[in-house]
Every structure is written in structure tokens, then in C-alpha cells.
């Protein structure tokens, strides 16, 4: 009955500048209340929903001012400055402080755009805000009817698919800005790492961007005089003129110098031919991955992806595989990034799919193959009985397999971690496989360090 009304409301809220999250919460609130009361009541309530009391403020509440919109470009202006400052910090013996902020704006059809926002945080000693010693959390205060224990509203655990990533009002014009941002993120990350174990394989293809060098020669005029070549030319000319009768006693003062003899060097576009690479992104999208873990895995893959975009000028080919108990390949990063499905976990299914693809398309011969896998470490195949053999097959052709495990809580190691350690693969082939484990509360710097670990 109120389904249609709710849709209109959320549309209206979106127009008012609420985030999808807030809308979700408001809608939940309405749904809870609308059992008895008509819809329109809570809608007039501005202000943050279900937030700290300190999030309320007069400008928002009384003057219904929205938070000022920050255009990303105003930040990007300073990015070089900031990076220089950050480098200086390192020289002065303090850890770096600039982080790469939230960042993807995927477009359909393989056109993935990344937005980079330099962020930082001022560390202080504070209580851990996410700490809770009770099993059931408190959601704050409440107001209205209802017996103790009565459920007054529901909210889906997984936010709906729409909304995420696709910001409001993203139009064609925005693309430029986004492109430059992706470039910026890539540039920041490029400072930090490069692909390991690249080998010459198959057809050559340029993996680096063009570099300009002073290698082309030009006679008569140019940028830098090539003295050796010029002298050679002068000697040549003078020999043919008969100006050099005695080679054992050369009098250079008698040389005639034609303007045409001057050899200069000029800029040339150089292209380094290198091997080509194929990157597989593999992500666990099972039910246990809900929330922070998925966010972290995806954020890390975004970083790897945008770094590749920059460093290898999009010439690295990428493939995307998602898995729960079964694996499937998806066509683009957008889908890879956004898809959420609940289910069990069977890591081997994904490994098998990657192996099948490589075999079927005979990729191993022509490509350097890299596989990045993100998971929370849960696997129903607890001993890796199926995953390990697949992994071994993979190691036969892969240049590097990087597995990121995002643990739910510190302490106990996860199944995937356990069976990988037990298999001894990490020791047998340290050049080929890396595994990195961290908790689900880490920051971006840790993600970047993680990438470094995976590809160093």
C-alpha cells in the first residue's frame, strides 16, 4: 500500500540531498510507523537520522542549509603540493599522512572512473568508537509507542544495489574531471609499486607509456648539438673536399664547416616494448563478506585497478571473477565492484574458473598472468582439499598470485589462511604467491601496504 508512496518519498529525499543511506533509514522509519500512522509525518524532520547528537547544528536544522558541496577539483589543485609535503615529512622522519580517499565512479561499458580525494586524519587518543561489549547494539534513543521488546522497524542488512557509486546528477560533462582524478590516484600509487616478475612472452606490446628522449638526429638545426657526430660529419666533408691531405698531421684550423654538417639531437617519442599482462581480479561475494570486509577488498582492488590504468596505460588486460559457492566471470569492473549476493563460500570454484579460462584461451603462452584474490577467509572447504590443487595448477603459469584476507576479528586465523599456510606453498614458491592478512578495521594506508606486500 505504501510502496509507491515510499518510492516518491525517497526520490524527493534524494533531490533534497540526502545520501542513499539516510534515505534508507528514513524509509525504514516510515515503514515502521506507517502501520498505524499515515506517511507524511516524519518527513518534515530534517537533520541527521540516527547519528551522534553532535551532528545536529543550527544551520542545518533551522536554516535548512545543506552541507557545503566540495568540488573535487578544488582539492586536486593542491595534490602535487601535498605529495611534496608528504615526501618532505618522510625525510624529516615522520610517517606520511596523506591518504587516498574514497574513490570509484564506475561508468557502464568498461569505462571506469576513479575519483581521488586526498584525505588525512588528525590522530588523537580517543576511545574506540566501534568498540562494543554487548552482543546487541544500542541504536540510540527512541520515541513513541511500543512495548519493551517489540520490534518497531527493519532495515535490510545489505543496502540495495542501486545508489552505490552512481552519484546524483552524474552527467556526461563530469567525465573529464573524473578522468583526471583516476590519473591522480594512479600517479600517487605508481610512486609506490610496480608489477613483479614481468617476463618476455609472446607478442610484444608496450606496457609503459611513451617517453620522450633526445635520440633523434637532425641536420642543420635542432635542440642539442651532437658534437661527436658533427665532428665526424665535418671530417667526412673535408675528406671529400680534399681538405685533409695528410691523415697523420691534421690541421683542424683549415677545416671548412658547412652548416649542413651540424648534427643536432631532437626530441623523439620512444616506446619501450615489454611483455603484456593479464590481471585476474577475484572476489568473494558470499554472505559472510557483508559490510566492511567487502568494502576493504573492493577498495584495494580499486587501487590496484587504477594504478594499472595509469602505469600501464590501460594496456594490461583485466578479467573479473566473482565467487560464492560457484564462480562466474563478469564483464567489467563496474559489475565486479557492485554485485552483492549472499551465499556460502567455495574458494576452489573461483580458482578453477580462472584455471579453465587460462587453459581454454591459451593465455599462459602470451601473457604474464597475475591473480588478485580478496576474501574474508571463510571457506566451506575447510582443509582446502579442493582449493589447494587448483592453486597449484595456477602457480604453474601465474607470475604472481596475491591473496588478501580480511579477517572479521583479530586473533584466530581463518580457514583460507590456515590451509594455505599448511600447504607450504608460501615457502615453496615465495616468488609466485603472496598472502596478506589484516583485520576489517584497517585504514587505507594499510591497504596500500598490502598491495606492496602482494606485488613486491
Amino acid at each position, binding site marked *: 500500500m505504501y510502496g509507491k508512496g515510499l518510492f516518491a518519498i525517497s526520490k524527493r529525499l534524494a533531490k533534497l540531498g540526502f545520501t542513499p543511506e539516510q534515505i534508507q533509514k528514513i524509509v525504514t522509519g516510515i515503514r515502521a510507523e506507517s502501520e498505524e500512522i499515515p506517511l507524511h509525518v516524519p518527513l518534515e524532520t530534517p537533520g541527521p537520522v540516527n547519528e551522534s*547528537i553532535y551532528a545536529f*547544528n543550527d544551520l542545518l536544522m533551522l536554516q535548512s542549509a545543506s552541507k557545503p558541496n566540495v568540488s573535487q577539483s578544488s582539492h586536486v589543485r593542491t595534490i602535487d603540493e601535498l605529495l611534496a609535503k608528504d615526501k618532505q615529512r618522510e625525510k624529516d622522519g615522520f610517517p606520511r599522512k596523506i591518504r587516498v580517499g574514497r574513490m570509484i565512479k564506475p561508468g557502464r561499458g568498461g569505462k571506469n572512473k576513479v575519483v581521488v580525494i586526498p584525505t588525512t586524519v588528525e590522530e588523537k587518543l580517543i576511545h574506540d568508537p566501534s568498540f562494543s561489549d554487548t552482543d546487541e547494539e544500542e541504536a540510540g534513543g527512541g520515541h513513541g509507542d511500543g512495548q519493551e521488546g517489540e520490534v518497531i522497524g527493519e532495515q535490510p*542488512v545489505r543496502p540495495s544495489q542501486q545508489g552505490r557509486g552512481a552519484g546524483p546528477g552524474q552527467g556526461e560533462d563530469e567525465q573529464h574531471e573524473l578522468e583526471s582524478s583516476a590519473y591522480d590516484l594512479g600517479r600517487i600509487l605508481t610512486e609506490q609499486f610496480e608489477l613483479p616478475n614481468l617476463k618476455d612472452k609472446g607478442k610484444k606490446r608496450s606496457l609503459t607509456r611513451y617517453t620522450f628522449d633526445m635520440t633523434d638526429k637532425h641536420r642543420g638545426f635542432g635542440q642539442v648539438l651532437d658534437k661527436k657526430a658533427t665532428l665526424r660529419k665535418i671530417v667526412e666533408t673535408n675528406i671529400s673536399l680534399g681538405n685533409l691531405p695528410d691523415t697523420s698531421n691534421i690541421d683542424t684550423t683549415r677545416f671548412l664547416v658547412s652548416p649542413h654538417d651540424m648534427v643536432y639531437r631532437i626530441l623523439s617519442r620512444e616506446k619501450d616494448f615489454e611483455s603484456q599482462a593479464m590481471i585476474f581480479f577475484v572476489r568473494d561475494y558470499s554472505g559472510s563478506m557483508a559490510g566492511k570486509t567487502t568494502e576493504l577488498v573492493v577498495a584495494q582492488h580499486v587501487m590496484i585497478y587504477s594504478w594499472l590504468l595509469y602505469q600501464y596505460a590501460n594496456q594490461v588486460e583485466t578479467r573479473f571473477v566473482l565467487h560464492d559457492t560457484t564462480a562466474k566471470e563478469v564483464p567489467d569492473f563496474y559489475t565486479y565492484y557492485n554485485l552483492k549476493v549472499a551465499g556460502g563460500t567455495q574458494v576452489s570454484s573461483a580458482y578453477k574458473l580462472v584455471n579453465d579460462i587460462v587453459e581454454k584461451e591459451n593465455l599462459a603462452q602470451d601473457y604474464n598472468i597475475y591473480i588478485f584474490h580478496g576474501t574474508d577467509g571463510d571457506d566451506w572447504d575447510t582443509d582446502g582439499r579442493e582449493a589447494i590443487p587448483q592453486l597449484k595448477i595456477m602457480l604453474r603459469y601465474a607470475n604472481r598470485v596475491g591473496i588478501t584476507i580480511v579477517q572479521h576479528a583479530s586473533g584466530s586465523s581463518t580457514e583460507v589462511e590456515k590451509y594455505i599456510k599448511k600447504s607450504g606453498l608460501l615457502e615453496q614458491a615465495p616468488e609466485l604467491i603472496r598472502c596478506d592478512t589484516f583485520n576489517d578495521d584497517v585504514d587505507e594506508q594499510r591497504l596500500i601496504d598490502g598491495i606492496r606486500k602482494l606485488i613486491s
Partner: protein
Amino acid sequence: MELIDQHTKAIMEGCKERAWAQGLRFENETLEYVVTNRDLLELSPKIMIPTLYNYWVHDLEVLKGKGRYELYPSNPYETVINTRPAISFYNDNNPDWLNVMIFYHVLAHVDFFQNNLFFRHTWNYDFNGEALSDKRVIAKLRAERGRWVDYVIEFSRGIDNLVGYYCELDQNFTIPTTQHNLRVDYYFDIFIQNIKHFKTSEYIKEIERFNQCRTDYAELGEDSFFSEIERRYPEFRALFEKYKERKSVKAFDLMQYITQNSEFLNKEENRWMLTVMEIVRKTSLFFQPQIRTKIMNEGWSSYWHENLFMKDDRINGHEVDFARVNAGVTSMPRVGLNPYALGMRLFYAIEELVNKGKQSWDFQRLNDSYKREKYDNKTGSGRDYIFFIRENYSDFTFINEFVGQDFINENKLFVAGRRLNESKMVWEYYVKSRKARDYRKMVMDSLYHPPYIVLDHEKSSKNNTLYLFHQFEGKPLLKEYISNTLLGMEFLWGGPVELETKEVKTLPLRGDRPHAPGKPRPKEMIWQHVVYSMKNRKLSRRIIA
């Protein structure tokens, strides 16, 4: 940023007249500015103080979401700031009637700033002006010292939540010292009352004996009185010494301690850093009362804008508009806490309570619920009482004292809980408790509360180490931030820094996470003592028993 036009200013002056007439007290002059989105962008990182010093972090996006208000307690979008004269900010397209409402709200804030005793230390100067001169000092230092100024700002800001706000405040309220010495006070006020539990008659007898001694022996009277006591209670002397020791320990201000005791900072070439630190410290102290009176401040302002607006004859015809906006501001959300709504309801409730004489001993002793409900002494002193509250309370005392069961019942408040329904894969919100005690606890837990960190003098005496002890209050510190904070402290202190705290050893798996079938369910939480030490910019962590 420009001043509001003359027409709007005239409205403001009218509002002031009416507010004064109702008993609000604030200084004559105020400044009102119209701000644009662009201005807000620049002002918000500076917490709306236009003259605050420049700092590169202000140009960046900073942390959003949870934990933000622990780090940046001061509200970035406040409409009015506590300066002399008070400055407030407005949209340029507010209709007149809305401005009337906002003006009243703002004036009540100004009244609160200028009368609440928690703001006492901000009364004697104009922060805006001082910030300007500080800004110039920092700019000058930056020209001389370059990036090192920013490092010092950064490290100082890293500990600016550990300033001794209450000791600062304490200095403004000196308790008149009595003629009696501490020993007499201790004996009569604590020893025989709390330790020996004397009856009233015995107490009076002791006083008589004391007076007798005074008249008999004049100056030696006191000594002779106590010689008898020490004979009777041999433990008295030791207990008194202990009490004296405890009394002499002042609340700890980490920032101040470092500025006064760091050898590094007090070297001639580093003394400029002290200036920078003092600026950061002063700024932090300035904002402390605001964060500790959020609910009261907004409640007080909402109470007054409602009262004054309805009485204002200039806004006839806009009652409905007002009602809509006001309801938005002051309605209680179904789930969540709105400080405007909560604070305002509390002020109304207190006023009514006192008007009926319920804030009295007689009423407290009543057990008959019918009589309690009908109780009405018609004292009419409710208004005066809420003025007293606005002068003497902070959020903590306000909530602690006045959120009672009657208030909860009347306003249908409850503590909401959230739990996972695994079969439906939804979060369920439910009514967790309607008990006043739980509600109070929930609100108080959400109040700003920086960790309480003190100095361990004994352990600090070794090798110029700054040994800090975190008084554990059931919540661990945020681990990610420890390293850089200690790094900054080490820099300022010029020697190793250690921090003792408690951490979770094993965390039970949270119930809100789906887990694979057949796995063991959460275990008990176990705590352990850890010491973080920062030495030569390297952090290490050790577990102690």
C-alpha cells in the same frame, strides 16, 4: 561575507528588546553576517571562527563518520560563535519571519554562552580578536621556521583533547579559604562523619570540646585538642596525611605539563614552540564548554525561540510556517536522539516540576502515585529555576539529575536496540528498555568524553620518560591512532613516551555477523594490560601482567 541589511538588523534589535524583557541577559552588541556556500567551505574547518590560524589539514577532507566528534568535538556548522561581540551567520534568502525565529534561537545561545558557568573562562576576552593575533604570530613563525611550525601544530593538536579543562575552570572559582586549617576540616567533616560515623549528639560534644580547648589554651588549643584525638585514634594521623596528599594532587593537564617540564621545548632555540602549543591549547580550552553543553544549549535556545516567537506581534500570519519549521527542529525522532528536542522537553519539564513544587523534599517523600500526579503547590518559580539551571549545569549533570522515570513516561521515550534477524537478513530495531536509568546511561554514553590520561610520576622519573597512565573506563583506545599521537608527544617531550592502557585480548565474535554453521559461538571478552612505548620514533608494545 557581509553584514545583514539594515531592515534585518532592525528586526534583530526588536528581538533583543523582547528577549531582555523576558529575563535573558546578554551584551548589547552582536554582529550578524550573511554567508554563502563558499564562505561556509572556508569557515567550517575553522569551526566558524573566521580568524583562526591557517593549517594545511583545513584544506583537506577529513575523517567522516563515526569517531568524528571525538576528534573534532566542536561543531563545524554552528550558527553563532562565543565571541565579544557574538557573531552569527545566516543564509541570505531567509524570509523575515524565519529570521525572527532564528534570531531568538541565536540570542538564547548568546545568553547561554554569557551566563553558563562552564563558559566562565571565555568571558573576559574576545576570542575572535585573540585568534587573529595568534594567526599573525603563527604566520610570522612560519616565515621564520617553515614547515616545523606545522609539525608543532600537528603534534599539539594531537593532544589538544587532553587539556585540563576543569583545572582551568577551577581557577575561576576560588573557594574562600576558612580560618580553620585542613586538619580541623578533615576531622569534623570527614573523619568523624564518614569514618567513625558519630551520632549527632557525639558530634556536637566534640565541637563543644574543641571550643573549650580554644578558650582554655588559646593558641595551643587546637594542638591540645588533637593530642587527645591522636591518643584516642592512633590511625588518625596516617589517614590525615593520606588525605592531604590526595588533596594536593591537581587534575592533570598533559599539554601544560609538557610545556612546563619538557627540557627540549625549554631550550632557547625551541622556545617558539611553546607559543604555538599555547595557541593550540587555548583554542581547545575555548571550545570545551560548547561540546559539554550541547543538549542544554540547544534545548535552552529551542525553549526560548518557541516562547518568544509565539509572543512576537510582528509575525502575525506566519504561525503555520513557524509550526512546520519548529516541529522539524524539535520533534523527537522515532529512533535517534535529537538534542534540540530532548533539551527543550527537559527545560519544559523542569519548569513545570518546579511550578508545581515537585522539586521539593515533601514531594520526593510521597509514595502515593495519585497524590504525586495531583501534587501542585503553585509556586510559580519554575522560570527562575530554569534560569538557575542554565547558569549552573552542564549536559552531564543536566541529564543525570532530570531524566527521571516521570519524564520518560510522559514523553514516551525508550532506548532502541538493533539486532540481526538472520533468517530475514534484516536489522531489527526494537524497544529495548523504557527504564529511566537505561535511557540516562544511553544518553550519557553518547556524550563527549575524552580518555582520562594521567601522569605516573614514579615511573616517569626514570631516564626522562613521560609515562602516561590511561584510567580505564571500560572502553579501549583507538589503536590506529596511538602510534602517531605518541610520536608527536615524543617530539614535544624530547624523550621516550610510554602509555599504559588496557586492550581486548580476545574479542568475542559479534552477534551481528553471519557465521559459518558449526563454529563455536562467541567467548568471553578478556582484557590485558599493555604498554605502548615510543622511543626514537619507533613504537613498541609490551604486555604486562
